């Protein structure tokens, strides 16, 4: 695909004018990093905040009396029990899950936002709007539900990092009341022309938006959905408001390294055309209490319970920052020299490093004095043996072989789940 066939977001001219290194992602010409560099951008999100253009992601609407039952049948999460203490999904709350085919393979992962009793938004990956809309249509046959594809008609940016609430608060109308009870995976407001959920959310210049306490970095922050024409003014306003704190515009390279260190999967790379089981994201499956079955039936469920030769997806972190190139030409070798799988993701999280037996992050409160991380390679392997945390394996590509360690987690002291209150009260830390 040549550059002229690529889609662009409404912020494309800004990215070019700021000298971003651009790259192709899911059919879009997107910024990989700006002149500040991917490492600075990654570190900004860990210590201050970063803002990402994520308008390439696709948004669907699912509405009608049968909307909820359709999503309950198609999403891997049990909508009747997915909130804290087994509560059902309700207006103003969202949930992460995946859409599977009958073989239990992933079509895409998604966040489902409940707006009202019969109205939902489904946010999927770039370029996946049409495929997921078709999948839902197929399973909705005859139902009282309408599915709309808002791909390229809704703009989105993600403000992520420990100072996100402080920066956003400066440009938000009635900030205290909007932010006060916005827990992880809650949302409020609506973009231009839509009925707000819970309450309206407006910037001080009147621009309305849907504000969600979600993101793809593992750090505290927000996803902000708005009308495409509002993107540029909001982007400019945010960057100006965050300038004293060191807020940086961030590209897809930092997004990838942040999410890998936070053990978040990239759809079509870490989850994909294979059964959606035995991975770090089993919380997105509706297991019953005994974990022998599911609390509901859904598309793909039987296949997931009948896997004969499991493949396990496990996170790893390197002993230093060196990487291999993942994918079909990579291999994973166990301590006995057997080839047991492939590398799905291998990137450098430049905010972490090993000190003795432990991994510290630049945002670890108990990091050693003078801690200056060089970074660690990290990511996911898919292997035929259920490797335990602490086991070492070799990752190989055509040029090198590196020793890495399986872990249950990678970057410590992440902030995604902290309360807005805690982040607003946090002591000023030097970045």
């Amino acid at each position, binding site marked *: 695909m040549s550059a002229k066939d690529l889609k662009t977001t409404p912020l494309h001219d800004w990215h070019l004018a700021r*000298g*971003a*290194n*651009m790259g192709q992602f899911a059919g879009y010409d997107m910024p*990989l*990093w700006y002149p500040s*560099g*991917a*490492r*600075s951008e*990654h570190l900004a999100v860990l210590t201050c905040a970063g803002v990402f253009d994520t308008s390439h992601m696709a948004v669907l609407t699912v509405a009608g009396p049968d909307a909820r039952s359709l999503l309950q049948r198609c999403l891997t999460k049990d909508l009747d029990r997915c909130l804290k203490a087994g509560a059902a999904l309700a207006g103003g709350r969202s949930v992460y899950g995946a859409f599977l085919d009958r073989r239990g393979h992933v079509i895409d992962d998604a966040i489902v936002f409940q707006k009202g009793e019969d109205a939902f938004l489904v946010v999927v990956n770039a370029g996946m709007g049409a495929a997921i809309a078709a999948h839902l249509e197929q399973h909705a046959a005859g139902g009282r539900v309408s599915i709309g594809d808002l791909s390229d008609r809704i703009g989105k940016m993600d403000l992520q990092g420990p100072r996100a609430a402080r920066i956003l608060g400066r440009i938000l109308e009635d900030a205290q009341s909007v932010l006060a009870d916005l827990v992880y995976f809650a949302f409020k407001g609506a973009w231009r022309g839509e009925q707000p959920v819970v309450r309206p959310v407006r910037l001080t210049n009147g621009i309305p938006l849907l504000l969600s306490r979600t993101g793809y970095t593992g750090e505290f922050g927000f996803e902000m959905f708005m009308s495409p024409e509002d993107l540029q003014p909001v982007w400019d306003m945010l960057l100006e408001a965050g300038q004293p704190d060191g807020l940086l515009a961030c590209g897809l*390279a*930092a997004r*990838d*390294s942040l999410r890998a260190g936070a053990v978040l999967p990239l759809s079509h790379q870490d989850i994909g055309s294979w059964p959606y089981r035995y991975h770090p994201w089993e919380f997105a499956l509706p297991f019953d209490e005994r974990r022998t079955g599911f609390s509901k039936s859904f598309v793909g469920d039987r296949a997931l319970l009948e896997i004969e030769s499991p493949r396990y997806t496990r996170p790893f972190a390197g002993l230093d*920052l*060196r*990487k*291999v*190139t993942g994918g079909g030409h990579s291999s994973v070798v166990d301590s006995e020299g057997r080839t047991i799988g492939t590398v799905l993701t291998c*990137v*450098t999280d*430049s905010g972490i490093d090993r000190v003795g037996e432990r991994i510290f992050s630049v945002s670890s409160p108990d990091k050693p004095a003078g801690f200056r991380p*060089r*970074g660690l390679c990290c990511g996911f392997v898919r292997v035929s043996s259920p490797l335990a945390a602490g086991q070492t394996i070799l990752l190989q*590509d055509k*040029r*090198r072989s590196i020793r890495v360690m399986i872990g249950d987690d990678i970057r410590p002291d992440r902030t995604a789940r902290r309360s807005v209150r805690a982040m607003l009260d946090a002591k000023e830390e030097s970045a």
Partner: protein
Amino acid sequence: MKEISELNLPEDVRYTPEHEWARPEEEHFAVGISDFAQDQLGDIVFVELPQVGDSFAKGEEFGTVESVKAVSELYMPLGGEVVALNGALEDSPELVNSEPYTAGWMIRIKSSDAAEADGLLSRTAYLELLKGIE
């Protein structure tokens, strides 16, 4: 990304189509990667170099340069023996980004066939090649 007009392309080095450069010094050649290459790679976090005494043919891989995202090969602009390494890159690989032709040099080689240097690209020829990539 730097526009071609913003690239630093000194006259005193010769370039390869793989974006390495070689600078003739008294007895040896210093070798590194071009401003275009470092700009394309982004933040360089690690440079893997050979041992002093290793010999490679022209075009052979002598090491790797690693950005946050990817690992890329480094190719010999000239055949010869490695006589020195830039040890500063071990702690400060970002020198390749900030000063690709000076403090960010990678290896010094003793050329096995000085005539090979004639086959490298001048600044003008390299600039033409870059225009073709854009």
